[in-house]
């Protein structure tokens, strides 16, 4: 009898733990397994809240002027709409365009060239980069220790008010892991809750034929590094993935970005060279530059009439997810800091 009670108590305990975690992060139906190992950084409401507070706090920059959100704006699917190249402290210009932060739990490598190998480690880059937040790590830690809110938020999250690098990084990663976008019109159509217009349907067919090999459904990326035929920018001289691996075969390869919420994340490409989707389509049909590392997938030219290009754009707009852009739990929440 006693044994049975203990068994059921345990079962209930395990089940409730499972339910509360799975509510914080849900794998949309039909999607692959996330790449992020949640067992090493189990999500909790308090940790996500801490991560969110840090994401929106300029305390992470040297002169307390720039937060992660300065370059990753929630209303642009966490990309940056204002600058082709990101703008850091003291108006310093970086060398790349800030990408969207969407469905990061499925990503394997981070940055346009994959220089960062794990989502936890991502924050180290902007915090210490002289053209971004320009801070020293030990100084960030001591500022957080001395602040009036963070020791309490760290305590709520980790039952330990001591601010450590590990906890700082993991909390920011937790917030970013929650940024899942899976409620676009495209998703509704896939769930048979909506239908494409004829134009969108045609665009979808053309997309599957010409774009899906790299921008693969349902995440709209194959997580690979590819050369999509952009001519090199003569001033930036950015060779992409080669910088990380040192291998000539990686020259001009960049991470295939997701196209979810592409409507909100102009300008486009690693250097923000295109402002409109029609410019992007023009590139794929007329502008592809041949080189030894050009992806096999586009060795054959993409041929699209101007109407077909318009149809593809109509399809791309079905990847916009309003509930993601306007999700209140992704925005800055000052009131939460003082609870």
């Amino acid at each position: 009898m006693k044994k049975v009670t203990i068994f059921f108590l345990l079962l209930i305990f395990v089940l409730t733990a499972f339910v509360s975690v799975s509510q914080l992060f849900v794998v949309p139906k039909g999607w692959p397994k996330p790449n992020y190992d949640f067992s090493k950084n189990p999500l909790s409401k308090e940790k996500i809240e801490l991560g969110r507070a840090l994401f929106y706090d300029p305390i992470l920059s040297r002169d307390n002027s720039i937060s992660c959100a300065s370059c990753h704006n929630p209303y642009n699917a966490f990309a940056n709409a204002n600058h082709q190249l990101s703008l850091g402290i003291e108006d310093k210009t970086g060398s790349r365009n800030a990408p969207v932060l969407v469905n990061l739990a499925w990503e394997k490598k981070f940055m346009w060239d994959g220089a960062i190998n794990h989502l936890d480690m991502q924050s180290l880059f902007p915090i210490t980069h002289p053209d971004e937040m320009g801070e020293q790590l030990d100084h960030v830690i001591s500022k957080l220790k001395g602040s009036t809110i963070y020791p309490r938020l760290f305590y709520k999250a980790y039952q330990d008010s001591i601010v450590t690098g590990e906890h700082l990084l993991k909390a920011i990663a937790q917030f970013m892991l929650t940024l899942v976008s899976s409620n676009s019109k495209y998703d509704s159509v896939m769930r048979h809750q909506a239908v494409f217009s004829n134009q969108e349907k045609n665009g979808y067919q053309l997309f599957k034929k010409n774009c899906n090999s790299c921008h693969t459904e349902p995440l709209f990326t194959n997580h690979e590094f590819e050369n999509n035929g952009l001519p090199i920018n003569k001033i930036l001289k950015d060779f992409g993935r080669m910088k990380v691996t040192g291998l000539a075969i990686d020259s001009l390869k960049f991470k295939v970005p997701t196209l979810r919420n592409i409507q909100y994340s102009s300008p486009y490409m690693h250097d923000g060279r295109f402002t409109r989707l029609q410019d992007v389509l023009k590139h794929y049909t007329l502008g592809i530059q041949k080189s030894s590392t050009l992806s096999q997938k586009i060795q054959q030219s993409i041929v699209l009439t101007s109407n077909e290009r318009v149809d593809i754009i109509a399809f791309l707009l079905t990847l916009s997810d309003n509930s993601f852009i306007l999700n209140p739990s992704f925005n800055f929440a000052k009131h939460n800091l003082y609870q």
Partner: protein
Amino acid sequence: MKSGIATIIVFFTINTVVLFAQTTSNRILNFQPKFGNEDLQLIEAVYTTKNNDSIWIDVFKCYVSNIALLQNGKVVWQEKNSFHLINSAEQESLRLMLQTPVALTFDAIQFNVGIDSVTNVSGAMGGDLDPTNGMYWTWQSGYINIKLEGRSNKCLTRNNAFTFHLGGYQFPYNALQKVMISIQQNEKINIVTDIQKFISSIDLTTQNQIMTPGKSAMFLSNQFSTIFSELKQ
């Protein structure tokens, strides 16, 4: 019911504590940074290399991981979760406590200098592996296995500085080094790390700044792995 469980828990705790206390001990593993025969002193002390150049050492840190003890070529003890940041500037970091069985004989110690590739891609960790310890590259993920910084009149750089941040975990530039040295003293393990041996193997005029993974980092890491030996009594 509750008291039953409590009794069981208390029983088991006492049992394991007693067992543990009987069979394991803290065996000290001591690292002694030296420059030739002298104890290494950071920043102030000036040393002379074999080529008669003057040299100062400002920073000396490295990771020692996966420590194991061997007898006749077989592993007889292995440390779990074995990652240690050795820092010349912090005495405590040079003295490790190995929880080994009391009665253990061994004739060699084995460890890695640096952090293995699996750990390198496993996200943020704490303690000695905390990426804010200054032993992690921020612009490109990866642990810095070895940090050696100093000054020498040989270096025609700003402040005559030389800077070696050695690491890299990705093929073909995996810089992790496996070290195995024979040991005679079993109660307490004393290991010398002789910086002079490393410095005299390189020409500081041409090679004074390596801060990225690659061929040079691999070569220098390999040189570095030869500086460990048992302290001669």
